[in-house]
């Protein structure tokens, strides 16, 4: 579904850019959940942004193939329309823009790009209500401006409601577990399973901690260090990391 081959990328700065990804290779098949763990500065968020197509993140080598397409040649909104979802580590606040209005326009833009009929207001509201309930989020919050005045946990929950509404084929979730309390972590974990644990879908779960993996059981765990995958294993690798630390394992 997603094949990353020898990916090199750097983050462009005003005065100098520095290499962050240094030959990362990874392959996720449909129906699989892969977890990526690694110390601070290993390049986890850079990987997420490169996959999402964020400006300023420059690919200097390697390829990414997504469902047979050259992902890196696509614009961010085209990637979304092709079914890729990027869950932000720090969801952005957008004053004045209502969550529901933005999501409806986003969903309908995606549908139009895929040649599908746009959803009516009523159909969309029904869908939004259903997904908000799944993530135990108050519908009133969805009417407010995007993420404005939301706590860290509410922002992450909102990311998952958005994922539920957009129903992507592939999700890259960048530290979706950070900022969540224990109860919210369980709700979010169950939400990820409900939305993404399906035969035709794939997930790349970027996390610092093993705890989320208790709820969303990965098929593979990769350790990212200095911009490349240094070790790959099953769910037991996450437990070993938690016990012994990155230095001992990687």
């Amino acid at each position, binding site marked *: 579904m997603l094949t990353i081959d020898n990916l090199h990328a750097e983050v462009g700065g005003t005065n100098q850019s520095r290499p962050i990804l240094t030959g990362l290779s990874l392959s996720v098949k449909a129906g699989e959940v892969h977890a990526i763990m690694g110390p601070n500065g290993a390049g986890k968020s850079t990987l997420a942004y490169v996959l*999402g*197509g*964020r*400006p300023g993140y420059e690919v200097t080598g390697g390829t990414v193939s997504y469902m047979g397409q050259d992902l890196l040649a696509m*614009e*961010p*909104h085209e*990637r*979304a*329309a092709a079914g890729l979802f*990027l869950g*932000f580590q720090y*969801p*952005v*606040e*957008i*004053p*004045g*823009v209502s969550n529901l*209005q*933005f*999501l409806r*326009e*986003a*969903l309908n*833009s*995606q549908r139009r*790009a895929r040649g599908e009929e746009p959803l009516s207001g009523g159909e969309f509201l029904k869908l939004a209500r259903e997904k908000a309930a799944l993530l135990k989020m108050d519908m009133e919050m969805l009417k407010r*401006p*995007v993420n404005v005045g939301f706590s860290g946990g509410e922002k992450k929950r909102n990311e998952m409601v*958005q994922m539920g509404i*957009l129903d992507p084929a592939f999700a890259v979730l960048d530290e979706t577990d950070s900022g969540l309390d224990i109860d919210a972590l369980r709700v979010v974990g169950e939400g990820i399973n409900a939305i993404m644990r399906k035969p035709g879908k794939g997930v790349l779960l970027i996390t610092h901690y093993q705890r989320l993996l208790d709820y969303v059981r990965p098929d593979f765990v990769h350790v990212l260090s200095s911009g490349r995958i240094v070790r790959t294993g099953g769910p037991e690798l996450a437990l070993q990391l938690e016990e012994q630390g990155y230095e001992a394992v990687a």
Partner: protein
Amino acid sequence: MNLATLPTRKLEDWRYADVDALARVWPPAHGPERISVRAGDADRMVITGLEAKDGVALREIEITLWPGARFSLFALVHGAPYARLGIKVELMEGAHFELGGVILGSGDQTLEIVSDVHHAAPDATSNQVVRSVLAGTATGSALNRVRVARDAQRTDAVQSIRAMLLDRGASANAKPELEILADDVKCAHGATVGELDRQALFYLAARGLPPQEARRLMLQAFIADAFVAGESHLAGHGDVARIEQAALAALGALL
């Protein structure tokens, strides 16, 4: 406005004006429109565009608000190569004036909203909100003055001027101005000039919105500030919907 002589850019209120264009139509065919709202009455005006002659659209309005009167003016300044809306307001005791102005410019347009709001007596309030979106090499100016007379105690005047530049060559002038002679007053004023938040644009794109739609959504939210007060003042008249529609259509030309 003195109709005998062509204004020059040495005059503060005409400092950013397109005086060459002005010369083609000067002197104007008539003096300013005069509006007077009787004590305790309320009135409103919605301007969705200014009529142009030889590429110049000038509209001057002088408003007198008698004690306890209220007046709301919502205006969209766009379209003509040079357009200027000039507003003079005189507020008597306890009167209220509301201005919601939107400037939408592209190409090499010069667009202006220039106001002079005089709190002549105590307990009057005013609220002026101007939002400008400028593309190309357009220039948009919001010069909003509040004057508070010596005995106009407990004046409450708010000015909020913000501009969004879409292209490198666009210019915005945002100038709230205060002249306060009374001592017990509240006069809030703010002015900002900026560009669209790139992080927000990427966030919207990552959810599937094409760049043009993402910009439209953010700019729509930005200019909506100017119409917020209208939601309550004009409720039931459809005027807010009318000017928002006109603003959205004009915004489309900028994207």
